């Protein structure tokens, strides 16, 4: 396996009941890069993201074919822990969902569950996660305040911090900036640029413009098929497939 590949999706198919929503998808996701999956609704993007950490297993009657490898190891391996997988591959959702507890406790929640850690260790983890999510300066003087008192953009950055506190390797964001104003969106995008130095980032952007702004690589999905994937310059500059061109230039979708 090539050195800089973090995730390898191999001939992967996904079915809800009998309906196939992802068709034989093959793709490699690179380390220390932002990879965007984009396309019109019902294209399979969310399902694919939910497959990468087996979150789909929370739904009944789902089936997969093919394989997904992280660092060369199958995530479906019977002796691999799904809890460990979801720590390693964190997810930030469209609507921020802070727990109705303090800012600090939201971020500390995961590390406290994981294993016994001293108070000062927890403090360090929380501080580092909040800094990485570019939220520390906003909240350092009111860590005990309820998380619900934060603005939408801050809540979303809190959710990113919560993922980071678990020391993941891959961070997924599913339309994580849809409800945010341009300033909050810019702050999150700015922190993603920092985070990719250390992590592998996979996003479902809320629009094509965001994908263009932040992705190193992009993959266009349509009706469960991967239409094309490549570097951002290729996909948004000179897409090979007419359907990609039509979608990103606003001719359908």
């Amino acid at each position, binding site marked *: 396996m090539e050195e800089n590949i973090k995730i390898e999706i191999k001939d992967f198919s996904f079915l809800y009941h009998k309906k196939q929503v992802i068709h034989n998808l093959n793709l490699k996701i690179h380390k220390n890069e932002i990879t965007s999956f984009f396309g019109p609704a019902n294209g399979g993007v969310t399902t694919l993201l939910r497959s990468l950490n087996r979150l789909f297993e929370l739904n009944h009657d789902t089936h997969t074919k093919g394989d997904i490898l992280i660092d060369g190891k199958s995530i479906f391996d019977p002796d691999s822990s799904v809890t460990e997988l979801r720590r390693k591959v964190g997810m930030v959702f469209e609507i921020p969902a802070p727990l109705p507890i303090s800012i600090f406790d939201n971020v500390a929640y995961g590390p406290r569950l994981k294993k016994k850690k001293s108070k000062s260790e927890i403090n360090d983890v929380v501080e580092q996660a909040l800094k990485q999510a570019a939220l520390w300066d906003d909240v350092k003087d009111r860590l005990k305040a309820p998380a619900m008192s934060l603005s939408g953009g801050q809540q979303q950055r809190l959710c990113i911090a919560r993922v980071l506190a678990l020391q993941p390797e891959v961070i997924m964001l599913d339309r994580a900036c849809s409800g945010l104003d341009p300033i909050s969106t810019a702050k999150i995008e700015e922190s993603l640029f920092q985070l990719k130095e250390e992590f592998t980032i996979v996003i479902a952007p809320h629009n*094509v*413009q965001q994908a*263009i702004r932040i992705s190193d690589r992009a993959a266009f999905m349509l009706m469960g098929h991967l239409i094309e994937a490549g570097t951002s*310059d*290729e996909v*948004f*500059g*000179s*897409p090979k497939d007419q359907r*990609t*061109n039509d979608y*990103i*230039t*606003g*001719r359908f979708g």
Partner: protein
Amino acid sequence: MRKQFDKQLENLNAKLVEMSEAVEQAIANTNTALTTRNTELAKEIIACDDDIDAMEKEIESLCLKLIIQQQPVASDLRLVSAVLKILTDVERIGDHASDISEIICMMNGKEYIKKLEDIPQMAEVTQKMVHDSIVAFVSKDIELAKEVIATDDKVDDLFVAVKDELIVLINNNQENGDQAIDLIMIAKYFERIGDHAVNIAEWVIFSLTGFHKDSRVM
């Protein structure tokens, strides 16, 4: 949204065609002024260059407005950026027609030292190259763009022929020198017009393929 955008792109094409028609006319008029030693017409051509420059500014603004309003990507981005590049070449061709006209004015209707044959032919060929390159752009015709690029060899050959003939004329009689220099400059300007038409054709190919002179730009 897309309908409005398509309308704007059509308008952009129409403006570019309008500008290139003005430039083609300038080349044709230059040819006439040259062969008929008409300094009045040459002066008119020089005056018309301001209109061409104004058209360039207008199209440039249109492109920038489209970029900010529509944030074009993929084929749209290539089209708008190609127009911006083509624009510079079209404008420069207008300048060269004007440069030639200035020389015609300086020659002030004097009899030519030779019968002009190759230079008027250069004018005709380059005028067609400019015309075809813009047609290739508007009709997305990659073959026509390649034809324009190939035609440039003919212009280069004509230039060499003019040069060789003028050297003989200077060797025969030193008094031919003054006018020979004027004529070689005129020929050189037409040769440059051919080069600019090639540039346009290369941007047409970029707009259609993402490749510029065989290397990938986007």
